[in-house]
């Protein structure tokens, strides 16, 4: 029975160790950051936390499920435009057209695409459900045909590219390359008021923490084990009686939902949603955050988004054109030397450290004392 008991705690770190770490991060985000950061920096951090929500989804789909999602900009953008349209309508006030729709002179009243977004009860769920629905349609078609690897990656990327073309091509309806901007309010918050921006920061931080806890629970469940099995040998999983299409679909759809949620929060935080934020290049950047942070651990994937974007901002402030080169260099270094990202390197270091006798000293000494004790008793006797 004692051997059985040894295996009773399910995989992963002990809950208590996790709870401590989670509490520390939550305290840093909810107490420390608002206390020490200026309004400007805090609002930047809110933006990065939005990106971290996208990264969580990529960590789930790519890190755990092996699906290289190179087109998350599509879902991020869908979420952003759903929220953006609603905010534009509210800002314009009842009966008035949002400024973006007046420029072309084509519309007297709200176009039918915009109309439903008048209601927050439609716009907010849509920001999450629409990306999920599109991911479900795409995923069902693609996974059933056993399209995977580079083919899947290219397909998902092409969709992000196509989405940008559609938005740019419908200038009068979408604002074209300028996107939607000039937002005044967000559910009663005044977006030009620093105090209200702080409230917005807390909203984003809490949403990220909740999304992380939910995604982590999914990954640690049986489903998460099966997802890893699908990632490592999809064909073998079929012979265990699971349909990999369904397993992959769930992770892919949830990743799309997280990206949509992030996009919806991004709009009030940053004040713009435009094609430049969600095309092919931004989509690849999203994957780079996760690759740098470490794709196999959700927390590191999310941390990657914050770290990379923080570095991008601070370095761009010093050397305006330096970041692109550094990002390229970083990516090469990580691929060559840290294939599992910073998170993977940290856990490798930990494993090495655990083997070092110096660090293990006290425990060994204690064990030796314990083992030697009976002998000594005998010797004395």
């Amino acid at each position, binding site marked *: 029975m004692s*051997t059985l008991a040894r295996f009773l705690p399910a995989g992963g770190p002990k809950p208590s160790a996790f709870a401590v770490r989670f509490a520390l991060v939550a305290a840093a985000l909810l107490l420390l950051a608002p206390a020490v950061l200026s309004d400007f920096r805090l609002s930047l951090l809110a933006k990065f936390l939005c990106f971290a929500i996208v990264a969580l989804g990529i960590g789930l789909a790519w890190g755990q499920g092996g699906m290289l999602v190179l087109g998350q900009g599509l879902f991020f953008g869908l979420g952003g435009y759903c929220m953006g349209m609603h905010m534009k309508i509210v800002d314009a006030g009842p009966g008035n057209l949002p400024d973006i729709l007046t420029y072309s002179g084509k519309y007297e009243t709200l176009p039918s695409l915009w109309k439903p977004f008048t209601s927050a009860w439609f716009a907010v769920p849509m920001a999450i459900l629409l990306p999920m629905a599109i991911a479900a349609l795409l995923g069902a078609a693609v996974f059933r045909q056993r399209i995977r690897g580079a083919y899947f990656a290219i397909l998902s990327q092409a969709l992000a590219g196509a989405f940008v073309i559609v938005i740019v091509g419908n200038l009068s309806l979408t604002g074209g390359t300028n996107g939607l901007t000039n937002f005044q309010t967000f559910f009663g918050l005044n977006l030009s008021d620093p105090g209200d921006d702080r409230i917005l920061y807390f909203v984003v931080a809490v949403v990220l923490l909740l999304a992380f806890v939910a995604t982590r629970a999914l990954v640690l*469940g049986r489903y998460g084990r099966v997802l890893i099995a699908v990632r490592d040998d999809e064909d073998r999983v079929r012979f265990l009686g699971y349909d990999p299409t369904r397993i992959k679909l769930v992770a892919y759809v949830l990743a799309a939902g997280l990206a949509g949620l992030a996009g919806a929060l991004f709009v009030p935080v940053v004040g713009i949603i435009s094609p430049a934020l969600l095309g092919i290049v931004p989509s690849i950047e999203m994957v780079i955050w996760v690759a740098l942070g470490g794709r196999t651990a959700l927390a590191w994937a999310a941390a990657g988004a914050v770290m990379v974007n923080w570095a991008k901002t601070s370095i761009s402030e010093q050397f305006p054109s330096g970041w692109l080169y550094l990002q390229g260099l970083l990516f090469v270094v990580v691929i060559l030397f840290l294939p599992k990202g910073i998170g993977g390197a940290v856990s490798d270091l930990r494993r090495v450290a655990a083997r070092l006798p110096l660090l293990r000293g006290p425990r060994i000494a204690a064990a030796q004392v314990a083992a030697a004790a009976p002998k000594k008793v005998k010797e004395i006797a």
Partner: protein
Amino acid sequence: MTALLEIRDLVVAFDAFHAVDGLDLTLQEQEVRFVIGPNGAGKTTLIDSITNLVRPTSGSIMFAGEELVGCKEHAIVRTGIGRTFQKPSVFDELTVLENVDIAASFRLPFRSLLRRRRGMSAEVAEALEQVHLTAQAGDAAGSLSHGQKQWLEVAMVLVQKPRLLLLDEPVAGMTQKERLHTGELITQIAQEGTTVLVVEHDMDFVRRFAHKVTVMHEGKILTEGTVAEVQRNETVREVYLGRPRDARGAAEVLA
């Protein structure tokens, strides 16, 4: 006894080459059948076509009254057929326990799959016990030896409690002691009511544990019978002796 598996006129063609060429095979409920034959006889292709790893070109495979040809792989497993592979394929990143646990959970509704595993279920513990991997339950499957991986695979299929178990060279690469244990395990599984089809090369193992043997040659059934009957059969001798590269196998079959 009733027929559990009925294969009629099965043809598996890879372009012009017919790996299985008009094969008929009937397995009774609770039977243990060994399939032997020279290299390239189509033994593994037979198992692959039952589980739809390769798609049959024509013919019919009836399992418990259901046609399997055209069914998806996971649907076939869900009708109650389990298989192992020649090259042991387990999930290296998961622990031994997790490997068996996800195999055991394949009939759970999706909502219960979302929950975390709490401890070890009785079936999983029993399957691990049967293959002597209880002590390794917490180890990563990737750290097991070749023979242990094969056993882990057997545990993964046992825990699913299939009605028909297809074993593809289960003792390849095992030590003598491990072989003996595997043979006893097969006998025990059969006694508990599972129908077992074993593809095997090791004639010593076949002689020891087989009652009824089917000999395949060039995609067809050459003969069926007890081990002694098959050994006396003239055509079987010719098939093995006619091919120099199988001379060693022939010596073993005829010994």
